[in-house]
């Protein structure tokens, strides 16, 4: 058995994970990154549009914070949002000094574009490759600091002893032999869960592993019912067309050629917040003013030069995937499952209620996004709270006494799971792709933009059914080297658990707030529901729901219009 030992283990090497690792290392901790993908392959690299910070002279952190709270439909914790907006400018400047090539204004300063739900143009960007450009730079810093990276190591579970996190179990893809990775603190930074839906804007690796693993180990998940649908994704593949397209001035049109957003958001039009725009699109489509189940994103009037400089990536994607050149034709788009507002419950320093466990990035819920996240706020979330989790974890390990070595027995449970799956080859069981596909379509149908009791009831029954069928899932690859079949079964098991918490939360929440729209309860109900849903995993795998207060500081809930 291989045993690795570090002070801090960071699971995931996207922006949140790497930013956390850098800060933990700067604070003197021996830190290692454990990641199922090479860091540069992380999904943060796919972020297109930008990252927010109140840099402008007329802008202020208070205004950024207010927009965020309003965008969240008042479910965000306001103390966390204040930290978030106040620390944003410093973090952006630091990224710039590390080497990020932010697009500039005429006078050489960082340029900012308007984004949905924002009262000010405060989204910094690098053309439409913002995530990639920042991911590269942050990885360069990881190399510079010589931080250990275990790449293509798939984390299967957390090791918890006497109520404290002691490390993780991980499988190096190249050997397939489970390893104990001992650490005094673990920072989960495994990103989103978009793949519980089909289709989704998310990468194939976005399977919510860290949420599932933490949930399994006893850490609660918060506000899981809130899933953001991005207004502009391609129909079949789900691939994203950045909000930057609308930020730069793009229109949304229905089959009659109307800029329909005027009806739904008379002030902000296409740049209302995402929940509002996605609901409007879906309403147009449902009422028969769609085209092929889509609406049109039209940027032709921006002209070829601007499109080529600022939106070249999506132009190319639309050509590659739909044969549409946006310079000459509008592209068909529809709302697509995009971002999990919910995640592992943490405080403002990334600490989860399970001692030794921290979380940051999309897999965490601090909560700054509440029931609806603003575009450009999630990259910022990875940087601000990644950094803070790194500081906090480094401080935490200093005060934890050294403990005995973890024995091989820790591996037993995962080894058993693998052995059982290995024995299913050639059996009559179902392939993981079949179960995954049914789950994805069900989630889109029943846990989509518009929800109602009947569909949620049937969703709950379906999840329980799929979990039952998963017991007989069939593995085909019994080899050790790069066994992706095994990996996909681990992922699927976790996704079913996480989806269960999402459905249960949505069924229980009898109101409409942010991205959660109940046709049977169309109003926001602050009296009863201005609170977080906290899901803990019961012995039988089903979620136990509790509720926690929302922290309010300055901003009282108001009616939300754009």
């Amino acid at each position, binding site marked *: 058995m291989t045993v690795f030992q570090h002070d801090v283990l960071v699971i995931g090497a996207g922006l949140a994970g790497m930013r956390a690792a850098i800060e933990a290392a700067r604070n003197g901790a021996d830190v290692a990154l454990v990641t199922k*993908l*090479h860091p*540069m*392959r*992380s*999904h943060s*690299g*796919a972020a297109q549009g930008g990252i927010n910070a109140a840099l402008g002279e007329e802008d202020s952190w208070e205004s950024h914070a207010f927009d965020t709270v309003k965008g969240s439909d008042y479910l965000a914790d306001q103390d966390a949002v204040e930290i978030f907006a106040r620390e944003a400018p410093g973090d*952006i*400047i630091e990224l*710039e*000094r*590390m*080497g990020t*090539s*932010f*697009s*500039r*204004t005429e006078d*050489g*300063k*960082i*340029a900012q574009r308007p984004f949905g739900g924002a009262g000010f143009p405060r989204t910094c960007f*690098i*053309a439409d*490759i913002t995530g*990639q*450009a920042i991911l*590269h*730079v942050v990885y*360069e*810093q990881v*190399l*510079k600091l010589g931080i250990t990276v275990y790449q293509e190591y798939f984390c299967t579970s957390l090791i918890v002893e006497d109520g404290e996190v002691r490390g993780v179990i991980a499988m190096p893809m*190249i050997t397939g032999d489970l390893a104990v990775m001992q650490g005094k603190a673990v920072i989960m930074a495994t990103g989103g869960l978009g793949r519980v839906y089909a289709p989704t804007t998310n*990468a*194939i*690796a976005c399977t919510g592993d860290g949420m599932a693993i933490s949930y399994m180990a006893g850490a609660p998940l918060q506000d899981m019912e809130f899933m953001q649908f991005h207004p502009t994704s391609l129909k*079949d*593949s789900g*691939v*994203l067309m950045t909000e930057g397209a609308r930020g730069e001035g793009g229109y949304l049109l229905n089959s009659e050629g109307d800029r329909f957003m005027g009806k739904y958001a008379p002030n902000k039009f296409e740049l209302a917040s995402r929940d509002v725009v996605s609901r409007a699109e879906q309403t147009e489509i449902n009422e028969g003013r769609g085209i092929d189940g889509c609406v049109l994103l039209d940027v032709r009037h921006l002209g070829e030069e601007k499109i080529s*400089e600022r939106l070249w*990536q999506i132009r190319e*994607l639309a050509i*590659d*995937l*739909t044969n549409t050149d946006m310079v000459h034709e509008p592209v068909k788009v529809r709302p697509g499952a995009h971002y999990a507002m919910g995640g592992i419950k943490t405080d403002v320093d990334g600490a989860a209620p399970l001692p030794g466990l921290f979380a940051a990035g999309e897999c965490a819920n601090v909560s700054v996004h509440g029931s609806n996240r603003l575009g450009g706020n999630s990259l910022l979330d990875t940087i601000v709270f990644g950094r803070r989790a790194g500081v906090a974890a480094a401080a935490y390990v200093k005060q934890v006494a050294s403990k005995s070595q973890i024995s091989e027995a820790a591996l037993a449970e995962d080894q058993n799971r693998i052995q059982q799956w290995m024995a299913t080859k050639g059996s009559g069981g179902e*392939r*993981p*792709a079949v179960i995954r596909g049914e789950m994805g379509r069900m989630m889109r149908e029943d846990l989509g933009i518009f929800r109602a009791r009947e569909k949620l009831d049937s969703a709950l029954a379906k999840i329980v059914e799929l979990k039952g069928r998963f017991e007989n899932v069939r*593995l*085909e*690859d019994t*080899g050790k*080297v*790069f*066994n*992706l*079949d095994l990996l996909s079964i681990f992922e699927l098991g976790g996704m079913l658990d996480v989806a269960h918490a999402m459905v249960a939360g949505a069924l229980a929440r009898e109101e409409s707030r942010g991205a959660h729209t109940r046709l049977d309860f169309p109003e926001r109900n602050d009296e009863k529901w201005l609170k977080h849903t906290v899901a803990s995993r019961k012995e039988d795998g089903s979620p136990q729901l509790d509720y926690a207060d929302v922290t309010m500081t300055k901003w009282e809930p108001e009616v939300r219009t754009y």
Partner: protein
Amino acid sequence: MDVRLKVKRQDGTQPDSSHYDEYTVEMPEGATMLDALLQVRDYEDGGLALRYSCRSSICGSCAMRVNGRARLACKTKASDMANGDEPILVEPLGNMPVIKDLVTDMEVHWDKVRRITPWLENSGPEPEREHIVMHETMVDVSNALSCIQCGACVSDCTVLEVDKHFIGPAAFAKAYRFVGDPRDDTTMDRLKALSSAKGGIWDCTRCNICVEVCPKDIRPMDRIMQLREQVVNAGVEGGIGARHGTAFAGSVRRTGRLDEVRLLPESVGMFNAPRLLKELPGAFRMMRAGKLPWKDTLPLFSKPIAGIAHVRRLFDNARSEKKEAKR
């Protein structure tokens, strides 16, 4: 549509295990190669190994050889690859060891990236806020940096095929990103290192294959040429390549001819006796074969060609044009 695939299978731990498997999958029109391969993995053969994640040409995972050429599977339509009666040939990237099937060991590439000091170096006083830099400069840097490190160019690079030390197109494109960045204050050191390193910028043969296979239009070879130009313009001493270029141009400007006898000593250094001695046997062989016009070199015989004034004018024009462009 039916997509027929012929996929190279291999277990890297067992070198003799390589063979081809054929699959036919039913796919919607417009399906990518990645869609087809995932269909195989999910429903036909769970053991097929390949890398993938974003399926939108941004994570760089899914580069592989399709019909003999490196491509991103998620950017390549299966219908565009159809071969008449032949199945579509799918193989792992070249110039790196195979781990399993289409999964290669990219460490050889990452090692090279580490050789070019892949981070911004800036030891000067920190600006109060962001660095003030021209928008156009950042656009140029961003274009070079939009390389997704997929390894397609590394796979098909003809120099890497014969010289494992060559730093390679992707790593040079990354190096360009720092050299071109006004915020980096080690430009001279970088240029020196890139010019004199084993497998440095002068070893590129300009075969253009990296430009052709790059799925993101990074044009790595052009970046290498830009680096060469900067090395020459900065007057970086010591590189054989830079001297070779200067000697080459000097000869043509002087006589209108390529003076191959002087080219060698001028490139490796007039007083580089060991290197010159090493080249001697080759020189004799060339002379015997009539490939070294030594007579033209002797001062007595060495006359410029008839139209030399015209040649020199061309040189001067090119130079002043470049100065204009710089402004």
